[in-house]
């Protein structure tokens, strides 16, 4: 693992390109400490939209995912769910933007579709693990639906709720990010503010975003969910642009058909020959460099995240720090893990220019903070022997060996997530697969874009399978509801 990462460094493009990064840092720091809540136009609308898109996307994905989970024993359903969740929300958004334009439907579906695949998998696992001891006492003539709702569902319900809350938090992050492709959420204002160097405004937007995420448990009560859904449906901007049916039909029947088939009259050998040439060029010029860059970046970021985790987790662990130190640690980790990788990468990009470095640091920080938080929490319940050493000796000889397997389990679990994000960061100009996908959309070459998205999904599925095999071989277990 480490060796792969070292080799990856050699090939990675990590130059600092900007002329005077320190000047920009100073301007940014000044902006962060002087947040400006008044300057930003339409900020309230953006906040409402961000929350409404997240609620509707997660609710719809939840609903679909539940029914998919019931059919999860069917191989085709499992494969389909793996495929739709291997494609990042932003890629879905880019696709739906071409189909439905800048409408509310684009935002909702971009979240709901990949989330339904995730919900289906997690819900199926939860239902599988439900306590079924009462089954023995039930008469054999009882209907299947009755058995399901009385035996499995009550036990799974509480886990469903916990997981949905976690997903809502992810949904808020994704919803904010959707602004970067043009939807009217916080990301839209954030991008404008960054682009114009208005760091005080950007700081204000980020603070509001952290507050929404930090207070999520205070306002997301199960009983209020129907109300939230109704309100969201009412406030969401449906009329951003009219959905044209012709557009939808053209997208599926013409736009995404590979170019050689589209222009050819009757389909003959020549069509296939030119299709082969088309696909070879696409693969050699775009997909392959994209895949290589994506893998290199993923591997460096994964090891970086692991290294940072080992530094981060003691910051919130009562075994190493007192109350005051831990509080500072918590604040740092909450901010780092609540900020989407995409925004972190954008900030570093402004400082260092477009290379792999901003992406590596952003991914390592964000994921290191997530795993560091989980590991820190894990050490809370550990019981130490009375004569245990202190400080660095305690860390190296006692705590670290005990949590190392759990640490590896979480790290491998994040592997696939890091790869999904790596591909997406291409939209910012780093030459991973997302860069080529974004360029293809910009050039209106939808056939290329779709094919590249499918390649990205397959790469993701490969990592997912590999990570699961490794975890199974090392007998590492990850509790789904922890992540």
């Amino acid at each position, binding site marked *: 693992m480490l060796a792969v990462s070292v080799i990856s460094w050699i090939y990675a493009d990590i130059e600092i390109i900007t002329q005077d990064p320190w000047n920009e840092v100073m301007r940014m720091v000044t902006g962060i400490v002087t947040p400006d809540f008044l300057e930003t136009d339409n900020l309230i609308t953006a906040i409402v939209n961000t929350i409404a898109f997240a609620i509707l996307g997660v609710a719809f994905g939840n609903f679909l995912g539940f029914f998919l989970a019931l059919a999860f024993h069917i191989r085709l359903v499992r494969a389909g769910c793996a495929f739709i969740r291997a494609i990042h929300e932003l890629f879905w958004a880019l696709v739906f933007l071409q189909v439905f334009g800048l409408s509310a439907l684009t935002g909702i579906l971009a979240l709901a579709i990949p989330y339904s695949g995730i919900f289906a998998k997690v819900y199926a696992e939860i239902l599988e693990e439900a*306590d079924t*001891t*009462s*089954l*023995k*006492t*039930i*008469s*054999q*003539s*009882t*209907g299947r*639906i*009755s*058995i399901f*709702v*009385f*035996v499995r569902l*009550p*036990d799974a*319900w*509480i886990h469903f709720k916990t997981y949905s809350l976690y997903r809502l938090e992810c949904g808020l992050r994704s919803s904010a990010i959707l602004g970067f492709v043009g939807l009217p959420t916080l990301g839209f204002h954030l991008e404008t503010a960054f682009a114009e160097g208005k760091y005080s405004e950007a700081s204000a937007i980020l603070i509001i975003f952290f507050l929404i995420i930090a207070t999520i448990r205070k306002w997301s009560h199960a009983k209020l969910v129907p109300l939230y859904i109704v309100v969201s449906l009412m406030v969401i901007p449906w009329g951003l642009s009219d959905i044209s049916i012709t557009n939808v039909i053209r997208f599926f029947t013409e736009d995404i058909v590979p170019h050689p088939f589209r222009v050819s009259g009757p389909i003959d050998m020549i069509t296939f020959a030119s299709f082969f040439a088309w696909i070879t060029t696409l693969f050699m010029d775009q997909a392959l460099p994209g895949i290589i860059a994506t893998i290199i970046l993923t591997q460096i970021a994964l090891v970086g995240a692991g290294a940072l985790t080992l530094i981060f987790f003691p910051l919130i662990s009562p075994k190493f720090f007192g109350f005051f130190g831990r509080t500072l640690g918590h604040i740092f980790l909450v901010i780092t893990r609540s900020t989407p990788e995409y925004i972190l990468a954008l900030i570093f990009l402004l400082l260092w220019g477009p290379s792999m470095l901003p992406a590596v640091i952003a991914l390592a920080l964000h994921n290191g903070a997530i795993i560091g938080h989980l590991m820190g929490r894990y050490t809370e319940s550990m019981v130490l022997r009375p004569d245990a050493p202190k400080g660095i000796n305690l860390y190296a000889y006692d705590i670290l060996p005990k949590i190392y397997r759990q640490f590896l389990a979480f790290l491998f679990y994040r592997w696939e997530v890091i790869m999904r994000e790596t591909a997406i960061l291409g939209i910012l100009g780093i030459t991973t697969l997302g860069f080529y996908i974004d360029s293809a959309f910009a050039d209106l070459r939808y056939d290329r874009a779709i094919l590249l998205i499918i390649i990205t999904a397959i790469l993701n599925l490969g990592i997912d399978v590999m990570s699961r095999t490794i975890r199974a071989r090392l007998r590492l277990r990850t509790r789904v509801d922890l992540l």
Partner: protein
Amino acid sequence: MEKTLFSLEKTTIQYNGHAILSDISLRIEEGSKIALVGQSGAGKSTLLTQLYEASNRDVALVPQELGLVRNLSVFHNIYMGRLNRHGAFYNILNLIKPTQKELINVRPVAEKLGLADKLFAPVQELSGGQQQRTAVGRAIFKGSPVFFGDEPVSAVDEHQSHTVLSTIMKSHKTVILSMHDVKLALHYSDRVIGLKNGVKVLDESTRGMKTSDLDDLYQE
């Protein structure tokens, strides 16, 4: 001569090459009230499970682990005894909000077992004895003429044990209970089957039997 409901012929159950039941033959006649006694590990639970599987699961059962749905209320757990009598829609309706009709059906069962004030409490918040009585309630509500119970009153206090056991006896024609309390076993049954190390060593009427007559079962 009463009708024979269940019978075993020279049944041996092995687990990992170790015999849990050896060479057991017995007949259960309709209307008999049987107590299974013996030390823990003598094979009582295995024998009961064996008879239950042979019955096509049509009898009311209280397994040792109770098999309650912990997040559901006492009402819902008792209601589950008749889950097979209704369609899915009616069952879901009662899961969301108990109907008046089912409340009228379930409440008397809970009252008899001293659970009336806990009817809407989730089972996981109840004491061990209350949970056990809920499991008995579900079995009684099933309305089967035959009742199997594996230590159904082990966690219930003495006074309530009598109420629970007499309710079970009154509501079912045929009853088989495994019991560790020998006094209660002799008081409520008319026939006692004693097991020792997986072998049936006693199968007699309880008429005139004293608790000391069973001492042999508990000696090493």
